[in-house]
């Protein structure tokens, strides 16, 4: 692959570089709001970033690469996302912690007007009380967005993580 091909934005249907940049900026803002919701906001609002029929999965990279279907978290539809937030706030017994999401390298892979496919790198850093800060998860978001009333919503987010040896527990979503 030559340098031109590698640096050319991969968004076949975008009419111009301006549109492509605008879309990328929209996704950037979306991801920033998504991170703020989990890191500093109200986790009960996390399902609002998804469509009603959304799929959310957290998958070890070895499973993804080998075509094995098992996910660490598998939430189906708004209901599945709500169940996860209820478990976090009502039933799971865990030590207090802060999370911090870093989302970068957004790439728009394609859009057909209704659905937008994009990827991003993510890193989630975790700080337990009285302990050193550590990397909890590093991986790739594989996203499908849909606009609902003009707003971007996730129809699908697969968090495929390289950090297959999970340090202890995953409480909050990536």
């Amino acid at each position: 692959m030559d340098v031109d091909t590698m640096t050319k934005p991969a968004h076949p249907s975008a009419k111009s570089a301006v549109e492509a940049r605008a879309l990328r900026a929209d996704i950037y803002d979306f991801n920033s709001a998504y991170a703020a919701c989990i890191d500093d906001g109200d986790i009960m609002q996390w399902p609002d970033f998804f469509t009603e029929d959304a799929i959310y999965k957290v998958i070890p990279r070895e499973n993804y690469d080998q075509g094995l279907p098992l996910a660490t978290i598998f939430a189906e539809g708004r209901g599945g996302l709500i169940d996860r937030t209820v478990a976090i706030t009502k039933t799971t017994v865990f030590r207090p912690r802060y999370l911090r999401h870093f989302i970068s390298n957004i790439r728009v892979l394609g859009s057909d007007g209704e659905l937008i496919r994009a990827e991003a790198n993510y890193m989630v850093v975790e700080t337990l009380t009285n302990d050193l800060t550590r990397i909890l998860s590093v991986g790739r978001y594989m996203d499908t967005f849909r606009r609902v009333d003009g707003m971007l919503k996730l129809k699908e987010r697969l968090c495929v993580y390289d950090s297959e040896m999970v340090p202890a527990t995953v409480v909050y979503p990536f």
Partner: protein
Amino acid sequence: MATQLKNDPLNYIWPEEGHTRVPYWVYSSPEIYKREMEVIFGGPAYSFIGFECEIPNSGDFRQTKVGDKPVIFTRDETGQVRVFANRCAHRGVQFCYEPHGKGKTEFICPYHQWTYNLKGDVIAVPFRRGIHKQGGMPKDFDMKNHHLQQLKVATYNGTIFASFDHGMPSFEEYLGPKMLHWVNRVFNGRPLKVLGYERQRLRSNWKLMFENIKDPYHASLMHVFLVSFSLFRADNPSKVQLDATGLHGVQISQRGEKKEDEATSDIRQNMAHLTLANPNMLQPEKEFPGEATVVMQTIWPNLIIQQQSNTLAMRQIQCVSPEEFELHWTYFGYADESEEMTMKRLRQANLMGPAGYVSSDDSEVMEATQFGVSKYPEAKAFVEMGGRDFEDTDHMVTESMIRGFYSGYRKIMGL
């Protein structure tokens, strides 16, 4: 005169109350850990290795560990499963780098290219006879003395176990009929398929993982999710069974009705009013004979067989250090099952693993236990729920299996 150091390695004396107490030095002492690796994982015990379906063809292989010792398992040209140390016979190099792979015909150490066949025999030693009559191995060098270190392998209905002790009896004899009965429930010869893996590293002693599964007392209290959805309750019909050594054990339970009464009134956060917004996640289907819906079996020294509703997994314990271990989960189903059943397993997997609605409580509490015991080696645990003996019970309000475990552990460790 100087007083004797507390926890001096020469002074590891078990509390006089016996197996109803667990001295906290067993969870943090480097001397104890070293002995465990030698006499338990390096000794007469069958450690779980993997599934035969993970290496269907000759030359397929995977890395794993026995205790903290790296090994690989593979299948030779005759179809026999082989397990050997991932350590070149020459200078000790890890010769297999890839975590798993297919169709090898030989293993070549990258350092000096010593080459081994699939039986673990060395078949090539470069420059063995020197170059231009210079160098080379001494005249009495005999390839036969330089094979990979082999483990004794036992396969049982698709599962693979191995031991560093070549004098081991058969796997059936090792487990005994009572424990084998529960193994046969899930592994009856029906072909298996792997659904995926999960791995986590916990800052906790490895024995706390065993204790967790041998402790039904906590399950009906800490696991609010399980109790709220009646997957496990103190008053559900249930029992625990141990083998004669106390080292293997099993807890067996039935899913109950969702209700509030004295079995839940002691639970600080009873959430019986909870409902799932997506009930798809938890629609178990009966698939095994009998009434039990949860069977959690601990097989000494490194395996938990998990059957909670339709989520099936092997949880393999790998040791890291006195205060760290890893849990390697292999989720599976059956090769001939319906897509619908596989989907049930994948949905119910939300209960288990590092993010499990149930298991994350356990991961957290094991690290919290280590936090509590690590710097108080002179203190000890009180384990008398359900009495002071260890025997089978037809209820869950007991720590019988933990007492049995430490009774067997003390004998093996000479403590």
